[in-house]
């Protein structure tokens, strides 16, 4: 009979795993021993947080369940941020952690942590495996749970003795997921009918589309509905790519840093159809004034997402793809000329723009150049902050799974490892990560992994010398007192002044890139950007391009915190 470790390998094979990200340690040595001869690509990361973000990026780019493997104690606690990131955004992932031997649990053993306790609120489900005979069932179940319904991360904590034990009863696999727990996929036909009626009656309908459409592989069905019924579409950050932003019906992203036409359309529409979206506070602004004139409809697979923050009039619980497929034939092709004319007038009056004739290098310009040079064909992975918002404004997404970003948790340090994971899953695609000089430093060590595994990700650092989004809020709402947001040595508060040993900015990203085995470049002028990008794309190796950009550029438009979507700030002037 097989050992527990061999069962795990078998289970992963059965689940179709091709690539595993992780780091070994004392309590997973048996798993790694079994892995030694297994047919998986193993990617040794430099930090467990990196492993989780790589599994996450792999999952977002490919649609498959990402997989990572870490040791007990600190190995497991280091996964918490990555699990929480995936949990908030509904990304399917299975994380396997080692645990101290069963008889030591609770004894404060070396490298012991209550992993299932710590990860309970940031996983869809987790397991502490108590018997080797349960392993085949648990591994299969974990992948099923991760990918079904609203997807999410699942953690399996396996004590060392269970990894070493020999199976005695292979048949002992009681299925725990009960029939009743399977979500209703098709949606109630009467409610779908009611939604179709509402659409047919609406004068000013609007589709508000979230990551559920991407997770549910329903971009085609959504586009068909929007085009047939002539309904304009706005997407959330997570929904970018679900509808081609080059389409005249595309209003682009809504919310705090959304486009003006999108937010105006929300405020004026008479029917708002949320599809796989969750009315996040960064989307709605002041909740009582969100879509005040609209009948609100919601299509979602997650029963707890319905009526969570906004009461809906028509709720359809089901898989977005099934529901949209049933809905579209029931809606009529109606020309709502006044509404579309209004939309186009807003689009014309309020384009997303910036100071195009600036003499210094602006971050928005760099992103626009990335779009131009890649012709919109790259997978864009971002970190979190100003550059993330500009990446939504100045790159047009036309396909699902081409914009990967930590939406819910807002995890700085996500970008580089997620890009590596995406590239590991899709070796032929161009994967570009945009990062700020703040966020890139949170997981820079993973660049080595890209070099080692010949994953030619391009890292574009928009270096403005500060934690830009923090700086922006301090400028707008905290009297321009830049407490702890300056990464350079000048402009710091008195109590953060440091003895200046160099006059420059630390670290030197070009040297860092080179030290990690990648190519490093630095640009600081407009005319240098395109050539540098072209050169980087021509090199089949990881490249870091540091762009020295204007330090005090702000993201506009902006809905101030607590305000309604109608109260947008267009600039500081």
């Amino acid at each position, binding site marked *: 009979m097989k050992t527990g470790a061999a069962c795990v390998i078998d289970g992963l094979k059965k689940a179709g795993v091709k690539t595993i990200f992780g780091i070994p340690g004392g309590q997973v040595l048996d798993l790694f021993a079994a892995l030694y001869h297994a047919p998986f690509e193993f990617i040794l990361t430099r930090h467990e947080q990196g492993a989780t973000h790589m599994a996450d990026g792999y999952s977002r780019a490919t649609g498959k369940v990402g997989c990572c493997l870490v040791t007990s104690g600190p190995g497991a606690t280091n996964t918490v941020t990555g699990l929480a990131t995936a949990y908030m955004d509904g990304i399917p992932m299975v994380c396997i952690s080692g645990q101290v031997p069963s008889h030591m649990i609770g004894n404060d053993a070396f490298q012991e942590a209550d992993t*299932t*306790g710590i990860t*309970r*609120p940031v996983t*869809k*489900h987790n397991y*502490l495996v108590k018997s080797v005979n349960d392993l085949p069932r648990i591994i299969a179940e974990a992948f099923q*749970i991760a990918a079904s*319904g609203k997807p999410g991360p699942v953690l399996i904590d396996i004590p060392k003795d269970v990894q070493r034990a020999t199976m005695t009863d292979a048949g002992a696999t009681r299925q*725990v*997921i*009960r029939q*009743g*727990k399977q979500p209703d996929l098709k949606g109630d036909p009467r409610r779908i009918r009611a939604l179709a009626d509402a659409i047919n009656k609406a004068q000013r309908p609007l589709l508000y589309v979230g990551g559920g459409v991407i997770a549910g592989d329903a971009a085609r069905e959504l586009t068909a509905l929007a085009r047939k019924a002539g309904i304009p579409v706005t997407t959330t950050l997570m929904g970018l790519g679900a509808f081609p932003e080059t389409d005249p019906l595309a209003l682009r992203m809504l919310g705090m840093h959304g486009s003006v036409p999108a937010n105006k359309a929300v405020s004026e529409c008479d029917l708002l159809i949320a599809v796989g979206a969750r009315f996040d506070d960064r989307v709605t602004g002041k909740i009582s004034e969100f879509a005040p004139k609209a009948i609100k409809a919601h299509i979602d697979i*997650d*029963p*707890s997402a*319905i*009526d*969570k923050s906004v009461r809906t009039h028509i709720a359809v619980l089901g898989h977005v793809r099934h529901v949209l497929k049933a809905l579209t034939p029931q809606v009529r092709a109606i020309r709502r000329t006044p509404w579309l004319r209004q939309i186009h007038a807003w689009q014309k009056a309020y384009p997303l723009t910036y100071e195009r004739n600036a003499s210094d290098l602006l971050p928005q310009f760099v992103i626009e150049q990335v779009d131009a040079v890649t012709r919109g064909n790259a997978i864009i992975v971002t970190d979190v902050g100003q550059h993330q918002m500009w990446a939504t404004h100045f790159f047009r997404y036309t396909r699902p799974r081409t914009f990967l970003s930590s939406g819910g948790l807002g995890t700085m340090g996500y970008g580089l490892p997620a890009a590596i994971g995406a590239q590991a899953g899709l070796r032929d695609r161009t994967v570009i990560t945009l990062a700020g000089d703040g966020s890139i430093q949170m997981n820079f060590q993973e660049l080595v992994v890209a070099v080692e595994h010949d994953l030619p990700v391009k890292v574009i650092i928009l270096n403005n010398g500060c934690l830009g989004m923090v700086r922006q809020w301090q400028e707008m709402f905290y009297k321009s007192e830049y407490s702890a947001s300056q990464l350079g040595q000048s402009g710091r508060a008195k109590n953060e002044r440091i003895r200046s040993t160099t006059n420059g900015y630390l670290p030197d990203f070009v040297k860092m890139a080179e030290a990690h085995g990648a190519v490093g470049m630095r640009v600081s002028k407009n005319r240098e950007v395109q050539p540098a990008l072209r050169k980087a794309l021509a090199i089949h190796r990881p490249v870091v391009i540091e762009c020295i950009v204007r330090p005090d550029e702000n993201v506009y438009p902006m809905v101030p915190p607590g305000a309604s979507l109608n109260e947008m700030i267009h600039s500081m002037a």
Partner: protein
Amino acid sequence: MKHVITALVENQPGVLARVVGLISGRGYNIESLNVAPTQDPNMSRMTIKVPGDDHVLEQVTRQLNKLVDVIRVSDLTGRRHLSRELVLVDVLAPAAKRAEVVQLAALFGARVASVQVRSVTLEMVGDEDTISNLLTLLKPHGIQDIARTGEIAVARGG
């Protein structure tokens, strides 16, 4: 408003922590909680009494329903249901006062479970209000100790 939530769950370690975590994570204090196996030893019935905002608890109920090892959850508040609680109360009852205490207990249908030299232990099954009434009347006699099961509830069939 007080909510009575009943949950049918897998009889497994960690389930209670998951359920309680979802409630306590919102800063709500569980007033009473009862868990015991059902006729199927693989399943347990939980009854949770928790005060809180109606809308938030509706959300909590939906999220509880999503947990893998929660089989079914319902909020019985405002629905036809039967609820009972058991209390054991030890009250001072020296010989001179014993008859008075026992008589009072009899008015509530409480039973004398045990008699000591200086006290008696009463047991009573009832709804929350009746139990509270009994305790109020026993208080002047000197309550030594109380243990309550917390409310348990089942929905009433049609």
